[in-house]
């Protein structure tokens, strides 16, 4: 960190760069054509391509969800066979987790926003960034190959011996697909950690990092520490399948519970890979739309790291009924309660940020409120499941299904929607239809609760998960849930409609539509190819709403490189600042 200190002691010549409202040259106009996009190393284009890919898989997996819910309309068979049902829920879960939630916020939004919030021109390793996108695509191809070779019906958790008793090539293909996907996740994490350490613009010290960056930092650490364990697990599983190496297979003297340990050593931290970046978005949006410094900056920043750490010690709460030793279950149950603490700290600080803020109920903020409500329910029910004796009753019921949908969809996906609506003007240079956006947000809230609240009740009454039929008494709950899922489907179609429409006929977005103090908003909309046409200099915290906007638009007065010298900023105030 000697470098940061060296920077502090230097006097930098800075001047004000007010972003142009009519940029002629942006990253969208700079390199054009399909080939240019496919070979680009620009983090913004890569982020957008990730976004499209994630949206595609979300639509696919969402479509499967609707099919599953439709099957559950009647207690007996409605329109698909039991075996097909098993394959569909497995595919739904695997795609939503590995193809949508894990990459969604970091690789899509994070890729676009992270370098901008750091005032960097790109991530540290732009070519690896592009490689991670193609690796993601390769993983997808393997998954489709799995479908072509007979499909797989193990559930997204791939438990042995379901996944190792030789039930076809499908499992091998899909697990290898997930293996490959892991590398894309690892590359993103490696890139982000390095970028955050080494590529911060002058003045961005660790205590001036936006909370979104802290969240992505914590996420990257989890990605780097947990994903390799998934990789080796899958490799062992593949060899188990290909040549019966016997490490996990009880028939050969191996231990299937060991597979569960390995799997959850990745997959519990992975739930934090999914939710922690969401926390980052919430912190950004809540401060911008309350026009107020976040309450408890360090508490929010460090609780992300605390979650990352404790999150590695609780995986056994998924294995309470697996035959795991009583000592381990007790310890895991206790540690699970601890994770609630840093999560609770965040919620309290966000609420305190809202207190006496000038709250502006724009769409992103609406999603923040939805998030706070849904995620809190998800978190509380998680704690209940963490209680050993309660979980013996609730394990593998719809209660668990409801819990993780409240955190994954009510948390991560809602945060993703908040971030998408928040940064959409920056990413595309277009405004979306605010009224339609608010209507669909409300529809999502209603549809979501209709879909998943009844599942808590059913689960508590003993409805097991992963079944395609059920006893008659659950019919009203299942039918409410199915109707809710249709409402969700409609809401997502509306979102798709107005977002796509905004690209063609949306109003032009100003450079800073929400009057945010964030550095990413001090560029043009959409940004220049190099993000900023100067080297930004930061002298304030990212949420200092009490300071004037000018102080957030500073850059080095002397350009150190030749390029972009010709794009002179529209207005220049020459000031001298000690940074």
């Amino acid at each position, binding site marked *: 960190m000697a470098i940061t200190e060296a920077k502090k002691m230097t006097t930098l010549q800075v001047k004000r760069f007010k972003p142009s409202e009519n940029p002629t040259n942006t990253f969208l106009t700079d390199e054009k054509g399909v080939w240019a996009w496919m070979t680009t190393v620009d983090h913004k284009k890569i982020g957008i391509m990730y976004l499209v890919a994630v949206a595609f898989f979300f639509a696919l997996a969402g479509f499967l969800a609707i099919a599953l819910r439709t099957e559950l309309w009647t207690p007996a068979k409605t329109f698909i066979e039991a075996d097909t049902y098993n394959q569909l829920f497995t595919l739904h879960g695997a795609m939503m987790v590995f193809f949508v939630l894990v990459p969604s916020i970091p690789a899509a939004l994070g890729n676009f926003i992270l370098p901008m919030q750091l005032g*960097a021109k790109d991530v540290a390793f732009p070519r690896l960034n592009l490689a991670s996108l193609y690796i993601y695509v390769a993983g997808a191809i393997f998954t489709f190959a799995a479908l072509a070779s007979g499909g797989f019906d193990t559930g997204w958790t791939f438990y042995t011996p379901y996944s190792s008793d030789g039930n076809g090539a499908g499992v091998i293909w899909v697990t290898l697909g997930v293996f490959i996907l892991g590398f894309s996740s690892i590359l993103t994490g490696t890139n982000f950690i390095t970028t955050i350490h080494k590529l911060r613009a002058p003045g961005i010290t660790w205590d001036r990092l936006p909370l979104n960056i802290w969240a992505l930092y914590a996420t990257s650490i989890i990605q780097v*520490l947990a994903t390799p364990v998934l990789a080796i*697990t899958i490799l*062992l599983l593949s060899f188990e399948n290909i*040549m019966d190496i*016997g*490490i996990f297979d009880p028939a*050969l003297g*191996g231990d299937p519970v060991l597979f569960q340990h*390995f799997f959850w050593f990745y997959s519990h931290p992975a739930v934090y890979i999914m939710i922690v970046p969401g926390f980052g978005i919430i912190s950004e949006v809540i401060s911008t739309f309350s026009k107020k410094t976040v309450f408890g900056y360090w508490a929010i920043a460090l609780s992300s790291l605390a979650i990352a750490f404790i999150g590695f010690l609780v995986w056994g709460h998924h294995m309470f009924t697996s035959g795991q030793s009583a000592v381990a279950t007790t310890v895991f149950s206790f540690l699970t309660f601890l994770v609630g603490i840093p999560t609770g700290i965040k919620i309290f600080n966000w609420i305190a940020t809202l207190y006496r803020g000038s709250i502006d109920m724009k769409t992103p903020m609406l999603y923040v409120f939805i998030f706070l409500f849904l995620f809190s329910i998800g978190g509380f029910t998680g704690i209940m499941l963490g209680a050993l004796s309660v979980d013996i009753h609730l394990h593998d019921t719809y209660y668990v299904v409801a819990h993780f949908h409240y955190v994954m969809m009510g948390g991560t996906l809602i945060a993703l929607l908040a971030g998408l609506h928040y940064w959409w003007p920056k990413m595309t240079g277009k405004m979306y239809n605010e009224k339609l956006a608010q209507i669909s947000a409300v529809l999502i809230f209603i549809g979501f609760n209709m879909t998943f609240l009844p599942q808590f009740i059913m689960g508590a009454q003993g409805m097991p998960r992963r079944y395609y039929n059920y006893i008659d008494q659950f019919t009203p709950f299942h039918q409410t849930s199915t109707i809710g899922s249709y409402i969700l489907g409609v809401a997502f179609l509306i979102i798709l409609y107005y977002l796509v429409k905004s690209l063609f006929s949306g109003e032009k977005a100003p450079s800073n539509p929400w009057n945010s103090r964030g550095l990413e908003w001090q560029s043009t909309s959409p940004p220049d190819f190099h993000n900023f046409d100067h080297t930004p200099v930061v002298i304030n915290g990212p949420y200092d709403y009490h300071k004037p906007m000018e102080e957030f638009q500073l850059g080095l007065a002397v350009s150190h490189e030749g390029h972009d010298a010709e794009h002179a900023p529209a207005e220049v105030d020459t000031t001298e600042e000690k940074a």
Partner: protein
Amino acid sequence: MANHSASHPAHVQHHFVDSDQQFDSAKLGMWVFLVNEILFFGGLFCAYIIFRAWYPELFTQAALQLDKVWGGVNTIVLIGSSLTVAMAIRSAQRNEIKGLRINLMITILLACVFLVIKYFEYEHKLHLGIAPGFFWNPAPEVTATLDHPQANIFFSIYYMMTGIHGLHVLVGIGLMIWLYIRAGKGHFSAEYYTPVEITGLYWHLVDLIWIFLFPLLYLIE
């Protein structure tokens, strides 16, 4: 660092301020990747530890099938290659391109020696029917001393660990050939030797892993 008017040499990519920032980033990135590698092998070590704790007598019996001497020789070969890679970096830092190439070449040769020895070890075991998975078919002289229902699992772990490690050696050889060619084209100098440095880090890690594999697999009495 703060001197932004420094000229931008050709090897510095556009998004870095200067050569040092690029060098430090590359190295940090490599270290983060090594964290990955440690946890990747960590899964295998974890499986090893758990099965060893369950079946200690199996591990004592099975290790007799491994040849301490060749394992030891291979350890020393890898240590030698780590030394030469460190020497290669030193040569690059001192702008001695010839020394860099010679050291790289020795490293490549040592890595090949390692693989050849490993090949003969595998060959010998496969010949005795000590093979992973459903190829497991031990010859009578093996079962005479190795009589344990989980014996196949020890060798599954052995093959997975040494196999994946061997794969890493192979990748290392590839990287070093690439460095050797680039060094020949004059790509490296005291100003710019980042690829040599980070490949070196990777290679030392491969050595580190073996330092643990050797006593854990071969030296159980």
